[in-house]
């Protein structure tokens, strides 16, 4: 059971929480339904380990509509803001770059033209100086180029830097790179641009990052390069580097603005969603609370209705429904009270004429020897049936007293052995008639409990007389035991026993196992019902077990002190000499035949029934000593809901013996037959 509850923990839902989880079959079905964690145990363990800390969060997520809506709004607005931000930043970036590129291109073009012009001028000057063209010394170039870079770069201090590189890679003509403004030339000019400039005479541009030789931080830049000829006609590469510092600043300004605005928008959306949802969720929560209280029985609860909106309509409809329900339920309660009163009144009213009739019948019975045999026989019959009528009336009164909650417990410490002795002595004549011997075991030590002696005696008498009546002349064993906080008396007979499903029904009013059988003693059909009510009044259990042809056992378990809840019984419900035990020797649960049943713990919310009903002890086939078997204690913490079906079902669970077919006999739901009221009707109808 404990494994059961743990295994179903991850998938446990509110609806399932109270439902019994007993059967292996059901567990499997549940496991499949809940995602089939049937992989390796390691994986399952891991999943559980991962999930455990998240469980409260998940639960909150599942239960809180407001949280769901707010989080969804936040995520969606965040997505929208991000998308918007990307688009805007991209556009701003493109715009800034376009402007910068255009301005830079025109500047660089001018620079290239100036460089070409200077080269031409220098070449012309050298030519005018009369130096032969072929033998012209290359003397000017080193200084000329430095001067060129200086004059080109002095045009735009800070706005751009100028770099020259030898054509054709690093091996170009023994000429070194030149750079203004502390730029590291080879690190700043991308290799691909150098190749491109080398291969064509057109200008080319690229983006790069300017690296400085000084401690200045590198920065992104646009570089425009072109292959130009020096005065000697040798090519070299001239580059203009335009730092994009301003553009970067503008962009980061836009970015910062967007981020701030986006943050505000997201937070604002979240707050708005929270406010709006709160307007809807608060009435819904109120309705849920009111509905819960309604279902808990406080029928006078109503919702507060303000305004005329949809929520108000919901509230009005809800209130109307609650009012109708309250009306119907109170009508039904009135009806039921009236019926009970009617029965009680009828019983009372019948008593007075019955006394008169009784007196008259006694006179007739006394004088029966003077009558003719037929009349004498009638007088005897009259007296017998009057006896029966009287006891029936007494039982009815008793039952109606229970129903009305008027039964009071007068508990005092008593020794159950004395009660048993009295009952056995009282049943002796009947037993002799039936040829039955009544044995009492477990009476070596006192079995003391706080109980109402009259009621316990009534219970036991009922059980013993029943056992003798159905014992078919075989022995009846009365067994006493005390252990833990409980005492128990079990009455065992070896008669016809109980058919499957009957163990649950023996306590129903006016039920009889075989309608054809005659009642030899004055059985009214209410004895076991009264006994059950008596046991319940003590806070005890009265349970039945039986197998067809193997006899039956009824067990009364009482708390040692009144008001103490029961946890188990000293005597196992299924006796050690049952057929199932004898065949299986307790290794496996008995496959069939064992019929154990308890009573529905609590039928109605009567005034005297405030104490919550206890689970009956799950009887275990294991050999049970007279002392309380710890394994026999009800282990599962599932609380009993006052639903008629469940106790009987659960009762079947631990014994694990009853196949559905045996249980069934046309009552798959199993509901109505357990209901005391309808039970009474049904049996009467039978």
């Amino acid at each position, binding site marked *: 059971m404990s494994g059961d509850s743990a295994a179903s923990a991850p998938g446990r839902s509110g609806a399932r929480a109270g439902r019994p989880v007993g059967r292996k079959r059901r567990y499997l079905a549940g496991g499949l339904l809940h995602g089939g964690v049937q992989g390796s145990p390691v994986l399952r363990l891991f999943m559980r380990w991962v999930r455990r800390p998240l469980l409260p969060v998940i639960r909150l997520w599942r239960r809180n509509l407001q949280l769901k809506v707010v989080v969804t709004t936040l995520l969606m607005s965040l997505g929208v803001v991000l998308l918007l931000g990307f688009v805007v930043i991209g556009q701003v970036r493109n715009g800034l770059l376009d402007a910068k590129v255009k301005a830079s291109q025109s500047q660089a073009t001018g620079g290239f033209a100036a460089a070409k012009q200077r080269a031409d001028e220098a070449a012309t000057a050298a030519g005018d100086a009369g130096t032969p063209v072929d033998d012209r*010394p290359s003397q000017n170039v080193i200084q000329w180029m430095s001067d060129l870079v200086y004059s080109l770069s002095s045009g735009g201090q800070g706005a751009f830097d100028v770099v020259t590189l030898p054509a054709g890679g690093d091996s170009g003509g*023994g000429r070194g790179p030149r750079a*203004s403004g502390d730029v590291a030339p080879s690190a700043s000019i991308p290799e691909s641009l150098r190749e491109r400039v080398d291969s064509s005479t057109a200008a080319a541009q690229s983006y790069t990052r300017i690296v400085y030789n000084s401690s200045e931080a590198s920065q992104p830049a646009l570089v425009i390069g072109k292959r130009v000829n020096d005065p000697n006609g040798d090519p070299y590469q001239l580059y203009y580097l335009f730092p994009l510092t301003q553009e970067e600043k503008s962009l980061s300004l836009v970015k910062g603005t967007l981020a701030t605005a986006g943050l505000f928008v997201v937070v604002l959306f979240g707050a708005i969603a929270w406010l709006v949802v709160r307007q809807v969720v608060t009435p819904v929560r109120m309705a849920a609370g009111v509905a819960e209280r309604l279902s808990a029985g406080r029928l006078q609860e109503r919702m507060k209705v303000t305004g005329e909106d949809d929520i108000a309509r919901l509230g009005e409809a809800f209130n109307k429904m609650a009012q109708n329900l309250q009306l119907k339920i109170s009508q039904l309660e009135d009806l039921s009270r009236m019926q009970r009163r009617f029965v009680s009144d009828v019983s009372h009213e019948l008593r007075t004429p019955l006394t008169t009739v009784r007196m008259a019948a006694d006179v007739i019975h006394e004088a029966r020897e003077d009558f003719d045999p037929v009349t004498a026989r009638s007088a005897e019959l009259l007296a017998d049936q009057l006896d029966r009528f009287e006891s029936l009336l007494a039982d009815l009164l008793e039952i109606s007293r229970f129903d009305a909650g008027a039964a009071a417990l007068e508990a005092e410490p008593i020794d159950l052995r004395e009660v048993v002795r009295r009952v056995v002595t009282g049943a002796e004549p009947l037993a002799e008639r039936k040829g039955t011997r009544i044995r009492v075991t477990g009476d070596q030590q006192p079995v003391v409990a706080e109980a109402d002696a009259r009621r316990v005696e009534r219970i036991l008498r009922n059980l013993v007389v029943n056992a003798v009546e159905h014992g078919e002349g075989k022995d009846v064993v009365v067994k006493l035991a005390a252990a833990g906080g409980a005492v128990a008396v079990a009455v065992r007979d070896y008669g016809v026993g109980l058919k499957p499903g009957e163990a649950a029904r023996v306590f129903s009013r006016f039920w009889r196992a075989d309608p054809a059988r005659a009642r030899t003693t004055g059985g009214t059909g209410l004895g076991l019902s009264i006994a059950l009510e008596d046991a319940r009044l003590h806070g005890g259990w009265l349970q039945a077990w039986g197998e067809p042809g193997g006899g039956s056992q009824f067990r009364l378990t009482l708390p040692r002190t009144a008001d103490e809840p029961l946890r188990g019984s000293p005597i196992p419900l299924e006796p050690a000499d049952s057929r199932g035990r004898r065949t299986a020797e307790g290794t496996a649960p008995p496959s069939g035949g064992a019929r154990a049943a308890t009573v529905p713990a609590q039928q109605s919310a009567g005034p005297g029934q405030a104490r919550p009903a206890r689970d009956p002890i799950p009887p275990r086939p294991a050999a049970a000593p007279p002392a309380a078997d710890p394994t026999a204690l009800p282990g599962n913490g599932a609380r009993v809901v006052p639903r008629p079906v469940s106790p009987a079902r659960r009762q079947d669970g631990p014994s694990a013996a009853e196949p559905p077919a045996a249980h069934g006999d046309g009552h798959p739901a199993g509901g109505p037959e357990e209901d005391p009221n309808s039970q009474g009707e049904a049996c009467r109808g039978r």
Partner: protein
Amino acid sequence: MAADREGGRRRVPVRAVAYAVCGAVLLAGCASMPDSGDLRGVESTPRQDTQVRVFAMPPAENAPPAEIVQGFLEALTSDDPHFETAREYLTDKARRSWRPELSTTVLADGPGTDPGRVGDREDADAYSLTLTGTKVATVDAQQSYAPAEGEYRAPVHLTRDGKTGQWRIDTVPQGVVMGKSDFQRNYMSVNKYYFAAHHAPGAGDGASGQPMAVADPVYVRKRVDPLTQAVRSLLSGPTRLLGPAVRTSFPPGTALAKGASSLTPDDRNRLTVELNGRAARTGPDTCDEMAAQLLFTLRTLTPAVDEVDLRSGETRLCSLTEDRAAAVAARGSAQHPDYLYFVDGEERVVRLPAGGSATRADPVPGALGSGEAKLRSVAVSRDEHDAAGVGLDGASLYVAPLVSGAALGERVLASRGPTEAERLSTPSWDAQGDLWVVDRDPAHPRLLMLEDGAGRPVTVRTPGLEGRVQDVRVAADGVRIALVVRAEDGQRSLLIGRIEREAKSGERPAVTVRGLRSATPGLEEVTAMSWSGDSRLVVVGRERGGVQQIGYVQVDGSTPEPQAPAALTGVQEIAASEDERLPLVAHSEDGIVRLPSGTQWQKVTDGTAPVYPG
């Protein structure tokens, strides 16, 4: 009830509108550019100079010989600290023998290559060519600049390395060769300071007994830790030109401590200089002088040094701040003349406050200001106590104190030159109070010195001087002298020399001017000149085939600062002060004009022969 609600409904929109208007006004304030607001100072960011750097490249694989030479020359113009890249172009042997620090040859247009005409051009493993160019100047191993002229030819020989098959230079001229603009880009002029030798402590004939600092300009590489270079150069002693006339306070053999890294001032503008053990035992006075030398030198390089801290090993020798340095040693550029003197229309000496913008001149007190003697030119001693004037005919020289009521004495000197232009020149006072003057008498051309402006004139010897001295100006430090000399062909050039005095007890001092060297090789006719700083003169002259112009020259002949004063025509005399903050004053066609910094020439008044004290 209903009425209340009605009223409430009417009030709500009004209030909402009011709130909305307030919000809109506030937002509108934020959403427009401010047109008023708080007042703040603007921090100026110094405009960084556009520096062009040449990056030396190692020789490429299988480069032809011409490219190797080209790459080598290019590497010489880079700011490689020890020319490591340039050395890669040399063979192992040449690498060991090549010493770039020996000299720097500056060519007008950079070195050109003249293909070798020797027969071994056909040799597959050898290649010769000649570096050619027109020399402008040379910088020697002492980093001293000297103007030069003539053609530059240096043979370069390349061989092919047998193993690697690469061309390398195996014969190369010592030193570094580069073009003029490369030189100006890579080098900068630094004044290192020494003390005038005749001003040894205890001599006591100076103005206040302070040693006089003499500037000695050298060239250091601008981007190769110039601070450390300047300090090393200072420690290594004065350049040859100045050598005998100055002394240094550093004990012989003083150098930077071994392993000392490059010198950089800390964040409090203090520079810590670690010297080797030779300097460990200097006294506090000497140490202060050493520190003053350092501080003066470094201040010309960067204004970011306010204090010098001298150390030797673990001991802290002394520390000198800039304020205290002025008390340790005197410097010409640190003296501030009070007045500008000139001769007005009545041929008397008048003066104007030096710095101001006043145009009304007052006659000087004393005889020269009274018009007692008609004067042509005047010179005022540096302490402004005495003045010397040359008479209108140029034949006589008068000296009179600038004190009210002082009488004009006898003339102290007379010239017998045949014409006015061939008699006495404008006299010049040095820092010791001696008066220098030139007698241009063709028969007896003399450079004369009058001790303390009186007594018998001493004829100054000028060995090695060709041509006749026309004009003289002694620098404030008393060591350098500038002479305008007319050669036989009529060319007037400016020569700078040093004054050497040999004071023998009891005898008249022998004064010699040595080391004369032209400072203006480009100028054909120097009209006027005046000292304008510790190592700088302002010169009015004419280039060959050019017009008259005004320019600055360094005493070593270089012109590091390209900016010249605004042009002025018809300049006959010019006066400048060592204190560069004082305006330049000239006698031109418009009379006395002056040039306050940052403006154009302004007319002051009529007059001739403007001079600052000196």
